[in-house]
């Protein structure tokens, strides 16, 4: 049977196919991806778009978690300082309630409590990254101390921050909730203690000190929000880090390259190329003419 005598186009096609395979293998090994263009695997390329979006979103959840942690740690530290200050005020009140104190001692204690009151106002006006921690959702200094006592300029609004798919976390506790408790404002109760100390009335001082103790308990209780939130954020961070690993693993299975397979393919393609070149070099010169003298 007669065969096609001009088989060089087919040999060249084979060679080109092998060389194309080599280029693909090299591209996959150099990029670490088996899908470098959508046409390589359209479904995987589309899934990769969604996976990258999910990874980006997850990264942002992690960033939000870190941001909240910084903010909450500052808030917790601030409230801890408030509790310390209130404890000092209670000590001063307890000491002032002692009827044997001299006027100068009372004056000294009064000054100490006034300083504590100022310190608490300053702490209540703490800001983090330019935002007041206890102003609710307004962006003005929440507490001002004037002749008429302490005034709260914030509101009772709260914000939420997304920390995972379908999960948000309250990002602030308004100052009205922490410092304007059911027993009166913390700063107002400190003012009552100042007034009592100034009066020198042991009973009044004792009552005012008890009221400050109640405020301390209230503030301590409110600061529990931050402790719980930090614990929750810590768990969330662990979850998100696992999610990141999971998404990256998923992405690798979608578009990543199996390096061992790609390297083996490349090796086979190189061998096939050598074989094709050898075949072309060997076959083309052969004809009957080679055997005629």
């Amino acid at each position: 049977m007669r065969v096609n005598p001009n088989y060089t186009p087919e040999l060249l096609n084979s060679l080109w196919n092998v060389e194309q395979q080599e280029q693909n293998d090299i591209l996959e090994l150099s990029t670490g991806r088996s899908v470098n263009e959508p046409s390589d695997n359209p479904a995987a390329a589309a899934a990769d778009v969604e996976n990258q979006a999910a990874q980006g979103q997850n990264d942002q959840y992690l960033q939000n978690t870190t941001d909240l942690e910084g903010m909450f740690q500052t808030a917790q530290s601030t409230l801890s300082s408030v509790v310390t200050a209130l404890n000092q005020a209670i000590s001063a009140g307890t000491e002032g309630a002692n009827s044997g104190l001299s006027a100068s001692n009372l004056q000294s204690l009064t000054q100490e409590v006034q300083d504590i009151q100022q310190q608490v106002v300053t702490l209540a006006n703490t800001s983090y990254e330019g935002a007041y921690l206890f102003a609710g959702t307004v962006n003005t200094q929440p507490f001002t101390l004037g002749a008429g006592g302490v005034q709260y300029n914030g509101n009772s609004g709260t914000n939420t921050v997304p920390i995972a798919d379908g999960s948000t976390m309250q990002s602030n506790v308004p100052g009205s909730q922490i410092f304007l408790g059911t027993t009166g404002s913390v700063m107002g109760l400190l003012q009552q203690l100042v007034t009592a100390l100034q009066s020198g009335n042991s009973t009044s001082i004792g009552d005012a000190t008890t009221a400050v103790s109640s405020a301390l308990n209230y503030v301590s209780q409110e600061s529990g929000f931050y402790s719980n939130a930090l614990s929750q954020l810590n768990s969330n961070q662990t979850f998100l880090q696992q999610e990141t690993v999971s998404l990256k693993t998923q992405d690798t299975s979608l578009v990543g390259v199996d390096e061992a397979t790609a390297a083996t393919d490349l090796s086979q393609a190189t061998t096939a190329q050598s074989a094709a070149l050898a075949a072309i070099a060997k076959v083309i010169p052969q004809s009957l003419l080679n055997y005629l003298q």
Partner: protein
Amino acid sequence: MGSLSFAMWTAAQALNVDQEALDVTSNNIANEDTPGYTREVPILQENAAITDGNITYGSGVELTQIQSVRDQVLELQIAEQNQQQSSAQAQTNSLQQVQSLFSSSTSGIGADFTAFFSSLSQLSTNPTSEPYRQAVLTAAQNLAGDFQQTESNLDTIQSGLNQTVGQTVSQINTITAQIAQLNPQVGAMQQAGQDPGALEDQEDELIQQLSQSTNVQVTQTESGVTISTGNGTPLVVGGQSYALQTAEGSSGMTDVISAQGQDITGNITGGTLGGTLQVQKQDIPSVLTQLDNLASQFGTAINNAQGKGFDENGNAGQALFSFTAGAGAASTLKVAITDPSLIAASSDGTAGSGGNIANLLAVQTAALPSGASPIDTYSNLVDQVGNLTSQAQTQVSATTTSLNQLNNQLGAISGVDIDEETTNLMNYQRAYEAAARVISTVDDLTQSVLQMGASAPSAP
């Protein structure tokens, strides 16, 4: 009865025939690598016998015809495969440019969506942060910029194909004019009983080239081949060719017009022209429409969410994006505000509220009117572009394999085999040498006869 002169005449005729057969072999060898060449074979026939009484003598050999060995059915099948392969190749070439706009999952529109929503999410941690607000604006500008750039690049690819359409139509006209010139010559030789092998080779080669350019129907008639486009628009009839024309159609895209003035763009499906028109008039417009819908629906959704909130100054949120609805939405998508404080993060009018960010972030996962979220819609588009390109590549591969098989079959019939030609060469050489030896022998015999007469003793 036989005679030396009859033997001499028979041998001389054989010499001529062998010489002509050697010419055919020589021509085959000379054209071994000529594209489109069809091998020729000398058709030898025994001369009519001569009867003398009860004895019949053979009267030698004659060359009746030099015949090209071709298979017209296979040639038509190859033309058909050429149309499909060239169409798929043209689609692949253009779609590879298109898919490069959607290749990266870490940059471009998909990544911009993620960056935009991440910036909003970050803003929720500190709604009064100027850098965070600016980051939202920057991410929105990047997204709008990439929508514009992608649409602009698609437009450039689409309008660039006008040049391919024009060049291909020009090639088609050149080829059909050449076929029209060959047609009468081929017909005349066929009517004269001659083999128009070389001319037919040229014509076949031109038809294959034409098939690579567009889909054609080829019909053999008494006046040569008649060639028409897929819908029957004549391109070549006898010695007359009908040139196609181009004209600017809708949206600045080139249309193909028949010599009779009809727009036949929609009927061209094969060859480079068909593949190019497929991408230019169907594939790219489909991608553009989806891109425009995505830009428009996403912009509307974000603007609606903005409208539900308040900016940092307590005013009702205004549109974040501006765009022309419908066609061209992607190319006109812009960020409408430059002041970061105008981002409507607040749900109650207070500057520090981030309550409306939830509404803005909800756009990320909520279904647009198209039925999917923005990122899902975009990934569907990536899938579609990838599939279009992959299908075209697969078709190139399949048609190339089929074309190779057909060319192999045709090569087995029409290709020049040097081994075969060398064998023929030796056969004709031996036959020539034998005929020459007969002539030499007959000449010797004739000399002997003549000398026999010359050496006879004179009469006493």
